[in-house]
């Protein structure tokens, strides 16, 4: 399905066309479930979150029109934001990282990086300009929805140091992307 096809399905969904919504679900549920699983690390919770994500898509599809995102990126953003809200609201983080996912660690390996080269090329190149552990922190935060607190603990630095690290990294990233 091309991005244009997905755009049409989102627009028709915003007009409450149920069959367009069903097609949109078929075309994108795997990616959005991947997002929920990766962030929440718990199958039952990810399934619950995915339901909420698609209900949101059904009710807020008209907001797509005011975004500059590609259709699939917009859908991923809805799913990611929802999953991160959920994990932040959760009291205790799940400890058994990756056991909930019966797939290999999906942090982009060389293969996936090659696939995403193209439009994604630049952000990866810009991440490479950062120090290795900071680039890893940015990537971990984005993909797993890790909080400042979790990142600080994992990297063994105080919370405020982690904030400073990430803010500086984001500024550098912006400078690099705007070059």
């Amino acid at each position, binding site marked *: 399905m091309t991005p244009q096809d997905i755009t049409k399905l989102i627009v028709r969904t915003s007009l409450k*066309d149920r069959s367009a919504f069903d097609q949109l679900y078929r075309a994108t*549920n795997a990616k959005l479930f991947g997002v929920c699983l990766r962030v929440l690390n718990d199958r039952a919770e990810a399934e619950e979150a995915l339901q909420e994500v698609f209900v949101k898509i059904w009710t807020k599809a008209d907001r797509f*029109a005011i975004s500059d995102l*590609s259709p699939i990126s917009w859908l991923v953003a809805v799913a990611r934001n929802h999953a991160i809200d959920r994990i932040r609201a959760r009291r205790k983080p799940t400890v058994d990282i990756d056991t909930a996912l019966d797939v290999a660690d999906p942090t982009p390996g060389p293969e996936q990086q090659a696939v995403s080269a193209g439009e994604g090329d630049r952000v990866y190149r810009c991440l490479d300009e950062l120090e290795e552990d900071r680039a890893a922190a940015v*990537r971990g935060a984005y993909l797993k929805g890790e909080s400042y607190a979790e990142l600080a603990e994992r990297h063994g630095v105080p919370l405020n140091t982690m904030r400073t690290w990430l*803010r500086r990294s984001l500024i550098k990233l912006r400078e690099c992307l705007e070059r």
Partner: protein
Amino acid sequence: MAAAEYVLGVQPLDERQQAARRVDTEPDFARLVDVWEVRLAPLAAGYPEIEAPFAVKQAIDRRLSRNDRKRRAGFWSSLVLWRGLAGMAVLGFALALAVPYVLENRSQTPPVRMVASLAAPGTDVQYLAMFDAQKAELGLSHVSGEREANRDFELWMIEPNKAPVSMGVIPVGSTAHMTLDQPTLAKLAGGAVLAITLEPPGGSPTGDPTGPVVASGDLRQI
């Protein structure tokens, strides 16, 4: 930096909720968030694709039909409905005047008249649409809600499982009349849904709706 941090997702819950509120209330902040979403979007290539179990889709369908029922229940107490009924009362009066004429013409073509109250949750835009198969005409009465500066209202016809078809930009004013061609007439008589979206001046540049739906509704026989 708050926009970048929000997109990255690293903030604690309270800061995140604060940022989410700003997205809803501050257009400049919302734009910054969008810019960061675009910048970081390629990282999403790192997410795996895993087909969700079938039960998830069934649960979504159940939730959507529940919401639908709730919406219908809420409909009876909504302001829009009462405004709509007030509009209908006016229309009913007009019809009463027209009945002798309609009866007189019944023998030639079956008169098909339908009305739709076009409205949507979250907006105050409301139109009343009157479809007259005999005159091959669709009349629109503006009930409430103004278009944003530099934006036009565009009317769409949507048949089940088909892409919306533009019926043109709605002229500013309290009433508008559109002449319908034969295929459009047949589709409307067959139960197509009408919707109004907010579009750039002169209408959607793509031929498909690009702006939010501000009102919609289906035609009902009267």
